[in-house]
């Protein structure tokens, strides 16, 4: 039964040794070990978290890029459309202008042709008159003896010509 009776000396040594061990190990072993473990765990957790964040950022960036690209594309399309419209308008305008000018030119030409025609006709008439006068004179010189009757007849003819 000696086994069940604690020995005073050993008890004292055990208590002192264990408390010493607790103090020394606590200060120089457990403290750095536990702190190191915690630090490492936090570092790993932080690294994982930042990796996740980087991934998310990357995704956001990619989405942004796509959005930007789409916007650029849309803008390009609208610009192109506008440009085409503008070009068409210019073309239409030019066409309209050209046709207007052409019409005016045709009109002008028509007017001047008319004038020319009129002038030419008047000239022709004068010349025809002179010619007819000459012819008539020559005819009448031979056929009409009386000068006065001859002139009356010519005047009647001229009058008839003018009415034409």
């Amino acid at each position, binding site marked *: 039964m*000696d*086994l*069940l*009776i*604690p*020995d*005073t*000396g*050993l*008890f*004292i*040594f*055990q*208590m002192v*040794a*264990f408390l*010493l*061990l*607790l103090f*020394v*190990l*606590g200060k*120089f*072993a*457990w*403290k*750095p*070990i*536990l*702190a*190191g*473990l915690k*630090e*490492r765990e936090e*570092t790993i957790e932080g690294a994982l978290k930042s990796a996740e964040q980087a991934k998310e950022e990357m995704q956001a960036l990619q989405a942004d890029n796509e959005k930007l690209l789409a916007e650029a594309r849309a803008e390009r399309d609208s610009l192109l459309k506008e440009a085409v419209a503008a070009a068409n308008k210019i073309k239409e305008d030019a066409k309209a202008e050209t046709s207007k000018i052409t019409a005016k030119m045709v009109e002008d030409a028509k007017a001047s042709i008319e004038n020319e025609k009129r002038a030419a006709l008047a000239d022709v008439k004068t010349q025809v008159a002179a010619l007819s006068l000459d012819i008539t004179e020559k005819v009448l010189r031979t056929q009409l003896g009386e000068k006065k009757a001859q002139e009356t007849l010519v005047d009647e003819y001229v009058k008839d010509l003018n009415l034409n």
Partner: protein
Amino acid sequence: MKIRRTNLPKLLIISVLVSLFSIANSNSVLAASGSGEEGEEESKTEFIMHHIADDYQWHIITIGHTHISIPLPVIIYDYEEGLKVFMSSDFYDEHHEPIAHGGFMIDHGKIVRAGEGHGSDHHGDSHDDGHGDDHSDSADHGAEEAHADDHGDEHAADTSGFLDLSITKNVASLFLSMVILLAVFFAVAKGYKKGVGAPKGIQSFFEPIIVFIRDDIAKTNIGVDKYERFMPYLLTLFFFILFNNLLGLTPGAANLTGNIAVTVCLALLTFLITNFNGGKAYWTHIFWTPGVPLPLRPIILVVEIIGIFTKLISLTLRLFASITAGHIVVLSIIGLGFILNSIAIGVVGTLFSTVITLIEILVALIQAYVFTLFSSMYIGQAVDDGHH
């Protein structure tokens, strides 16, 4: 295949160690068996008990009748005469027989005050004991026994008036384990001082154990917000018990964690930490248990107060009994061959004790775990706020 190749040398080392342990024990039993024919079984029991108990010298091996042992310092604080320090070898003369020194002598493995007549008396006894193998007649033997009994009775009073602070085998083993623990965990701690990095070498061996104690013992039982304060105690406790359990299994080593003075000291520390950290909920639960009918509360109070102390006693006895029992079983199985005087049983016994020793390694781990687990459970109950 590769794994097998790398494990082979380790296995070899382990088996050599185990067989060494068995051989060392067999030798001791052999030596003990030679000391007497009559009362043989008693001498075996004595041998086993002697192996388990503390000693003032570190016995290494006995070859024939030559004992090879390391003498350890004896420190006695006499309340009247003051401190006395000398080597335990002073208790033995050149023939290796016990003598008195400085008014003290060893009797039944304990230092006692040597009376005037007792020194010579005991001298005579042991002399006969040592050479008892050459046919001592039974009458003589009987007389001797009566004498020894006489001794015991008289010496009961003689252990008073002084404090035995000797560096016994257990104390020496305690110091040895302290050195090993410090060396190992300073080496482990060095790995963490270099900054964050993957664990290397010895660090990677102990880190999972430390993490296990932190996460599965402390955090689960004490709580995530309160466990940190108790971590140094729990870690020191676990590794102290584990290392000493394993040291106790090595050949010729002391049986430190199988000594009740050691286990009661550790249990007392858990007891003190538990009760000094006991919160309001803990004491309310003990003195006026909520949720129990009023007439029953005084009965529960008594039970709870007994419970405080049964925790201390159960912690003490569990470790002490597991380790001591393991040692007794191993030694008994080896001793069987000598008691039955059969080589065959001796061989089987040695093989069987090898198996038991392997189981003891498991027990060493389990008991370290269990002690730490229960300590953290008790602390957890004490610091609990009461809102489960």
